[in-house]
């Protein structure tokens, strides 16, 4: 695992490095750790696209840690950002980087192990986020992120993406046969014949779900309250609309 640590306090950065090494060694994970004291140095790290985790200070000498995080994301879109700072500043631009955690420096020793544990769990789980469709002896993998909704149409299931009414694919099957994992990853059954990706819901009101691509789907009246509650809980935990 490739990790990047950036803190202008070199002694503190070394402490973080040691702590991370200990934690990874305990889990038997080989680590390639790069420690920097300046943002520019971090951005100049070779093979930045290989890095999976960055532990950053918010208040760096020559650069803001938040904008550093944003620039790191450009090189490595899936990089998890953990901010370890003396002070947690949730500025307007702060949360748009969607940091994995914010930790106070004084509590680094106590909180970092749990934080890394949660991160490893999430990284392990995130490796399987595709819907595998087997049909006519062929296998197709659709990333969850690319699916807006699934619709049952007689004996077929149509899988829709961002373009309305043009299925990404269709296959013979039933919505009840969809893997449970799909529903654990933000998909919600809203009626007899529709499953939607909550990430792409614009709103639920008047017994209708409106998706971000403008598609409207009917919501079952019986389950309406439960569907709204599930969506509210999901939004509270995952939505990052600014």
């Amino acid at each position, binding site marked *: 695992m490739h990790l990047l640590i950036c803190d202008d306090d070199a002694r503190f950065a070394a402490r973080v490095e040691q702590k991370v090494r200990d934690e990874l060694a305990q889990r038997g994970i080989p680590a390639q750790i790069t420690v920097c004291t300046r943002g520019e140095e971090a951005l100049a790290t070779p093979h930045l696209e290989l890095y999976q985790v960055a532990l950053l200070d918010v*208040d760096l*000498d020559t650069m803001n840690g938040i904008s550093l995080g944003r620039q790191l994301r450009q090189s490595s879109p899936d990089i998890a950002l953990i901010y370890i700072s*003396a*002070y*947690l*500043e*949730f*500025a*307007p631009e*702060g*949360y748009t980087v969607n*940091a994995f*955690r*914010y*930790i*106070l*420096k004084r*509590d680094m020793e*106590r*909180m970092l192990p*749990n934080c890394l544990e949660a991160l490893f769990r999430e990284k392990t789980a995130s490796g399987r986020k595709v819907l595998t469709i087997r049909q006519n002896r062929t296998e197709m993998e659709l990333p969850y992120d690319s699916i807006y909704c699934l619709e049952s149409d007689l004996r077929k299931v149509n899988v829709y993406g961002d373009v309305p009414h043009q299925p990404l694919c269709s296959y013979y099957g039933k919505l009840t046969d969809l893997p449970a994992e799909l529903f654990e990853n933000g998909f919600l059954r809203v009626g007899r014949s529709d499953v939607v990706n909550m990430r792409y819901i614009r709103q639920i009101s008047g017994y209708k779900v409106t998706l971000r691509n403008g598609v409207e789907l009917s919501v079952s009246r019986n389950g309406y309250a439960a569907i*709204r*509650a*599930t969506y*509210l*809980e999901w*939004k*509270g*935990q995952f*939505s*990052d*609309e*600014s």
Partner: protein
Amino acid sequence: MNPESWFLIGHIVCISQWCAFIMVDYAYLGKGRVRPLWLWTTVLVAGELFLGIKLNIGFFTLLSIWENVGFVLVSTLVFGGTLAQKLTAALINGTMCLLAENTVRYVASWVTHTSLLMIWKRMDCLVAMTITNVIVGVLVAYFAHRWKTERALESPQALVMSFFPGITVVLNVVLMISAEDKPADFLMLLLTLGLTVAVLIHMGIVQMFNDQMAQQQALHVQAALERERAEALMDSYTTQRRLTHEFTNHTDALALLLQQGEYEEAKAYLATVTKTIAANTTIMDTHNPLLDALLSKKYEEASREGVMLYFDLPDLREIPLDNTDLVMVVSNLLNNAIDAAAKADPPEVYFRMRKTEAELLVSVRNRVQKNLDLPDGQLPRSTKKEPGHGMGLWNVTDVLRKYQGEYTISCREKWFRFTCSVPVRKI
């Protein structure tokens, strides 16, 4: 009245009575695990009717009293609530049924000069009884629902309050079974009406007491909130004073460095001072001073309890809650979460807020020792015994109602989640 009409109308009276019981149960106990409710309550009524016909229980007999006792107890099982609440609902139903029945019976007997044993054979009396059952059922259900919603009376107080209706039930049973084959005399009429009036006055007193308790609890909550807010701001103020004091030392040191022409040293020193100041005020900055002070205080409290509290917040300069309500929501949610997480392993709490053009989202997740049973997303009951405790989430939901917000709670895989949203445009 011919036997067929008597059979038919007698059973209509019974059905109206059972429907009244179900209305009261639903109003007082709410939904439980049994689904769908309409089906099971229909099955219950149909079953009771079948049993009554099959065993030829008859109407207004000692056996029919036992049949009704069975019904009021069994019907509570279909609904939610605790055992104490179920027993209270059964007592309310018992009192309501006997009072209504005896009052109608004695009044009708006195007015029509008909024997107490023969009064039920009159069509007009049975029709009056049916209408009374429905009206009284609706009224009692309304008051039961109010008591449940205000939930000011603690269990022991409610138990003491139900002592008098309990005695009334016994007296009414005595009245019912001791009825003789002659019209009701004026004394018996007065006694029956007196019992009814006494119970109504008693209910009025309970209602007043309940209102007073609700008011006291609201004041108690308000005082606690003010204290919480004052403490948070006081902590912040004390820190500011300490920093102001330290600042004098820093400016002295800087002046000295500048006098000596050591500009680079001065710049480096200034950088460290800036960081120290930031780290020593509140631990966070959401651009909402009250929230910063409050969250910093909660963070310290969580640290003392060994709980890891993670924040994920946006800029909270403008939020659709006023200060008092903000303190109410944040304090209660975090207090509950920290208390529960302190007993769990690992002790973690996640507090997340998001602000969009349409709404403010607040999500609190905390670990729990074991999964809580929350049928139909109902709020969990308090485990604390002190008066006023366990009201935290109720108060939060009251605030949300005020702002037309919505909430949801769940508990699975040892994670308790409370999520709510407050619309921005409706302020």
